[in-house]
């Protein structure tokens, strides 16, 4: 799969996308979430019935659609970075706005999901499962909100032509962060919504 699905432009030279610091940040953030994932698994092992009962009250349609939204948003950012690399400057704001729209859609769907839980009287204190559910999805939602604000700022910057093939580092680094937000959700979703 690896090389077959790549875009045609072969890049013989290895290069670090974005700046070094963003990789340190991404790595650290992923380790932080790793700790949350593993504590969730420990919590689950100690209270399997409670977790399964809680899980059954979640709607996997929300989680699945949110995954599709974030994956698409990630791809839009890939297209924005690619447009910058090729100096197609008019394209960049379009892709960034589309990516931002997906971030907003994710947030709105989370408002509905949290709203339904809270109005049913379910809070983080309701059970161990819900404690993990609110902590994991809450931390992740903060990342989505931060990332969406970043995409909006990038959109404004790209309209002022702040990014091109020679000024790529900021856009690329922000893009790496947004992909990380996507990949954390890819793990978080089955862990809470699908694991039987």
């Amino acid at each position: 799969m690896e090389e077959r699905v790549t875009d045609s432009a072969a890049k013989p030279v290895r290069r670090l996308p974005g700046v070094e610091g963003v990789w340190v940040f991404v790595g650290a953030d992923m380790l932080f979430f790793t700790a949350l994932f593993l504590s969730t698994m420990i919590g689950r092992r100690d209270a399997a019935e409670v977790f399964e009962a809680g899980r059954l009250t979640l709607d996997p349609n929300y989680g699945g659609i949110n995954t599709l939204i974030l994956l698409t948003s990630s791809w839009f950012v890939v297209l924005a970075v690619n447009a910058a690399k090729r100096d197609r400057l008019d394209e960049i704001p379009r892709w960034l706005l589309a990516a931002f729209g997906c971030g907003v859609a994710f947030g709105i769907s989370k408002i509905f999901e949290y709203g339904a839980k809270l109005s049913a009287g379910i809070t983080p204190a309701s059970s161990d499962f819900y404690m993990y559910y609110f902590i994991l999805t809450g931390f992740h939602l903060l990342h989505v909100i931060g990332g969406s604000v970043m995409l909006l700022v990038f959109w404004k910057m790209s309209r002022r032509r702040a990014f091109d093939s020679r000024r790529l580092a900021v856009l690329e680094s922000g893009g790496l962060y947004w992909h990380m937000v996507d990949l954390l959700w890819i793990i978080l979703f089955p862990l809470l919504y699908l694991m039987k």
Partner: protein
Amino acid sequence: MNLFKRPGLVVWLVLMLATVITTWVLSKDIVAARTGTVAIIAIAFYKVRLVLLHFMELRHAPLPLRLFFEGWILVVAAAIIGMYLSGGTT
């Protein structure tokens, strides 16, 4: 503006398809709970790898960086599946 020549299109399509299969097929009761769950977690980490290698361009990044993240995928996937299988059946 040929969308089919867009970079990452095939990766995006695979990611979308994998999500549909895990969310709306493998999680259903027609699949045995344990088999389905292990498959769902394995596919999730395969998706993570696609995002890291293609969207985050780790496939062209310096090797130590790529190996760190590939190692992370293996360790965390193994830990989650291992902890799941060692837990009680539901």
